[in-house]
C-alpha cells in the first residue's frame, strides 16, 4: 500500500495554481468561470490567459489536485457542453498547506513591521 502523496512536496505552489484551487474550492467551475472568479477576487490584478489557465489545469490534473467532470453541472444555465473542474481532497490539502505557508510568512512580516496589523 503506497503512502498518500504529500502535498508539501508541491510547495510553494505556483500563483496560478493556488488561485485556481481557491476558485474551485467551494464549487465546481468551468474554465471561463475560473478566469472570471480569479479576476474578480484579485480586483483585476491577475487575469489568467487561456494558455496559462489550461496549461496549469493540465498540470494540476496530472498532479491530482483537480479532476474533470464530464457531465454538465448546470444544465439549465449552459446551452452547450462545458468541462467542469472539481478540487480533490489532495488538492484541498495542498491549498491548505500553501495557505499555511503564506500565513507563516505574513506573521513573520508583521513581527518586523513589514505588514499592517499586529503579529
Amino acid at each position, binding site marked *: 500500500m503506497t503512502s498518500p502523496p504529500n502535498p508539501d512536496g508541491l510547495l510553494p505552489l505556483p500563483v496560478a495554481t493556488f488561485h485556481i484551487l481557491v476558485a474551485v474550492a467551494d464549487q465546481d467551475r468551468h*474554465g*471561463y468561470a475560473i478566469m472570471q472568479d480569479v479576476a474578480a477576487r484579485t480586483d483585476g490584478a491577475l487575469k489568467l*490567459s*487561456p*494558455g*496559462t489557465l489550461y*496549461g496549469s489545469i*493540465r498540470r494540476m490534473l496530472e498532479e491530482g489536485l483537480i479532476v474533470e467532470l464530464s457531465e454538465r453541472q448546470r444544465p439549465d444555465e449552459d446551452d452547450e457542453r462545458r468541462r467542469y473542474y472539481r478540487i480533490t481532497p489532495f488538492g484541498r490539502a495542498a491549498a491548505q498547506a500553501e495557505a499555511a505557508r503564506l500565513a507563516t510568512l505574513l506573521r513573520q512580516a508583521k513581527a518586523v513591521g513589514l505588514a499592517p496589523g499586529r503579529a
Partner: protein
Amino acid sequence: MADRTIGERVYRKLLRLYPRDFSDDYAHEMTQLYRDRIRDEGPTSVWLALVADLARTAPREQLSTLAQDVRHARRTWRRTPVLALAAILTLALGVGANTAVFSVVHGVLLRPLPYPDPDRLVEVFEDNSRAGGGPFFRVSLLNYLSWVERAQSFEALAAFNGRDFTVTEHGDPERIFGSAVTASLFKVLGIAPIVGRALTAEDENPAAAPVAVLAESLWSRAFGRDPAVVGRTITLNGLRHQIVGIVPTAFREIGRTQIGSAGAGQIFIPLSMDTAQNRGNHTLRVVGRLRQQVTLDQARDEMRRVAAGMQNEFPTTNRNWSAWIERPQRSMFDPRVRLSLLVLLGAVGVVLLIACANVANLVLARATSRRRELAVRAALGARPARLARQLLTENVSLALVSGVCGLTMAGLSMQALRTLIPATIPRADEIRLDGTILAFGLFITTASGVFFGMAPAIRGARASLLPALTQNGKGAIGPSHHLWRRGLVVAQTGLATMLVVMAALLLQSLVRLQQVPLGFEPVGVLTARVSTPQVKYPDAAAMLEFQRTLLRSLETLPSVRAAGLITSTPFAPGVRRGVTVRDRAAGGGSLEPSASAVEQVVSARLFRALGVTLLAGREFGAQDQPGSPLVAIVSEGLARRLWASSDGIGRALELDGRGHEIVGVVGDTRGTDGTARGGGLDRDPQPVLYVSSEQHPQGTVSLVIRADATPQAIVPAIRTAFREIEPTLPIPDLRPLDEWIAESAAQPRLTTTLAGAFAGAALFLTVVGIYGVISYTVSQRTQELGVRIAIGASRISVVGLVLRTGMTWASAGIALGLVGAWSASRLIAGLLFGVSATDSFTFALTALALAGVAALACTVPALRATRIDPVIALRGD
C-alpha cells in the same frame, strides 16, 4: 453547432501552435473561452491579450512536452543499458574522430589568415616555367625593386629572406631563427607593433644603424614582457642591433616559406638594399596586398607584362623569367597536404556513416521488440505522430549524449593531436576547439541522430496493432523491414570496401616512397647548420680559414670518416639557391644553351661525407684554391639537360657571369628542390651545380659528418671540438640525416596511418553490423530452420543457408564498393607514389579480404543455427 465566426476560425488555426496533445484536449474549451470573452470584452482587447498569450505559452507547452519526452527517453534507455552503451560508444567515437579531423582541416585550411582583409594578400614569384623550372622561384632584389617601381596592382609589396641569428646576451650563445624583411611588410600584413615602432624605409639603407624588431614570443620568453627592452641593444651574429619594436605573433613570413618551416621567426631585421647584387641572384620571397578593385587575374596579367618588359631590358639575367602570383593560402601548402586532409575528412565521415548504420540496425531491432508496448499505447489513444515524435526524441537524445561524449574526447585529445601533426604542415599551431568546431560537432551529432532515428521512429509509429497484440512479437516481419536491414548491410560493406581499397593504395605508396633511391648514403651521417660569425671573421679569407680549421679538427676525431660543408644538406633545412647556368660554347655541340639548377657550395670531402657517387672526372681538391681557375662539378641530370649525355668534363659553364670549368660529374641526389626542406621523397632529383667552397666562400652552411659509430655517440666529441675552435658559436643542433628524411615522409606516413585506422574501424564496425543482422535473421527464422532440421537437413546445409544469405548481401556491398572505389580513385591519385589508383591487384585483394571477413561474421550465427533444437523451434515459442 454554433456558427463559427472568422475570428474563431483564425483562433482555432493558431491553436495548432500548441502541442497536438494539448490542443486536442483543450482547443474546444479555449474556443468557448474565446467566444465568452469576445461577448463580454470586445474584440480588440481580447485579440491583443491572445496574441501575447500565444507567444508566451505556446513555446512553454512545447518545451514542456519535449521535457516529458526526454524524461521518457531516459527511462526507456535505462531498460536496455547494454544496447544504449553500445550505441553511445559507437557514435561517440564517430563524432569524436570527425570533430578532431575537422578541427585540423578548419584550423589549417579553412580559417582565414589572421590579417585584415586577408583575401587581398598574395605571394609573388619569379616564374621559370619557360625554361623548365617551376613557377615558384624566389625573387632577386633588383627584380623586386623594379616590380615595386612598375607594378600598379598592389597597395604594397614586401620582400623577406630567412636568417639565422646567433644571439649572445646571457651565457651560452643561442641560435634563433628570424628574417630580414622590408619595412613594407608591416603595410602588406596590416600589422602594427605592440610596443615601439615599426621598421622604416630608412632602416633599409646599408649605411643605417642596425636595428631589430622582436617577436612577442621572444619578448615574453627572454625579456619577461618588459617594455624597457625597446631602446636596448642586442648582439646578433656579433653585431649590435638596437631593438626598436615588438611585434605580435601574426607578424611573420607567410606563403611558401611556411612549407617545411618548423615555426615563425622571432627576430626581424631590415632587408639591406644592397643594390650591388646580381639581378640573377634569386633569394627573396615577395608578398603583396592587392589594391581594392584589382582581381587576382588582373594582377597576374599585369605582372606578366611587367616581367616581359624586364626580359627585354635585362636579357642576360631575365631571359625566360616571368612572374606568377598565388594566394598564400594555396602557396603555403604542398597541394598534397590539402588533398590528404580532405581525403581524411571524407574517410572519417564514411566511418561515421557506417557507425550510424550500425546504430540504426540496433535501434530498428529495438523498435521491433517494442512493438507490443507501442501497440498498447496506440490502443490507449496515442497518435502515431506523437509516438513517432517520442521515438525520434529517444534516438536524438541518445545521439546528443554520444555527441557530448565524442566532443569531450576530441577536446581532450587536442593536445595529443597537435603533437602528432608533422612540423611540415603550416598553421598547425592554429588548431584548436572553438565555436565553429563545436557547432560542427553538434550538427553531425543531430544529423546522425535524425539519420538513424528517423526510420525506426516512423516504423514504430505505424506498428500495426492486431498482429503485435496477439502474437508474441515474432513471426513474419514486414518485407520493408528486411529491406532496410539488407540495405544497411550492403551500404556498410560497400563503404568499408572503399576505405580499405584507399588505405591499401596509400600503404603501398608509402612503402614505395620510403624505398626510393636517394643518390646518397644517409646512414651514419650527422648534419647541422653552422654560421660563421661575421664580426670575428669579416672577410672571405678569415671565413675560409675558420671553416678549414673546423673540418680538419672534426676529421681528426676517432670514428669520423669524413666531414664536409654544403650549402644545404638534402632533406634538411637550408637555403637552396636557384641559378641559371649557360654553356659558354653555345652553338657548338650543346642541346640547350642554358638550364636552371640548384647551386650547392661544397667543400672538398663533401661527396665522401654524404656518400654521393662520383661518375666521371674528379672531386674538388688541393688544386682548387681561391685564386685558381674556377671549377665546377655537375650532377648527372644537369649534364644530360645541357649536353644530352652524362659527360661534361672539360666544358665551361657560365654562372653569375663567370666561367667555370667542369671537372667532374656526380650522381643525382633527391632532396635538393628549391624549397625550405628540399622537397619530398617523391620529387625527382633536381639538376645541381656544385662549386668549391674555397672559390665561393659562404658564411652559413650545412655541416655533414659521416661517422663509423652510431652518430649519437660522437655528438659530445663534436661539441667539444666546436667549443675549442670557436666558443662564441652556439653549439650546432646536430641531427642524424635519417631523421630529416623520415620527417619529410612524416606527412604521408600520418595520412596512411590515419587512413589505415579509419579503414580498420570501418571494417570492425561492418563485421559487427553483419554479425548483428545475421544473428537477428537467424533468430527470426528459428521456426523455419527448425523445420528444415526436423525433416532431415544436414548441419552443413543449414550453415550454407545462413552463409548464403549473409554473403549475398555482403557481395552486393563489396561489388558496389569496388565500383565506388574505382570511380573515386582519381580523387586520391594525387597522393599516390609508384602505384596506380586503379591497381587491380589491390582491388582484388580487398574484395577477397572483405569477403573473408564477412564470411567470418556470418559463421558464428550460422553455427548457432545448427544447434537449433527442432522440437523447441516447432513449438513456436
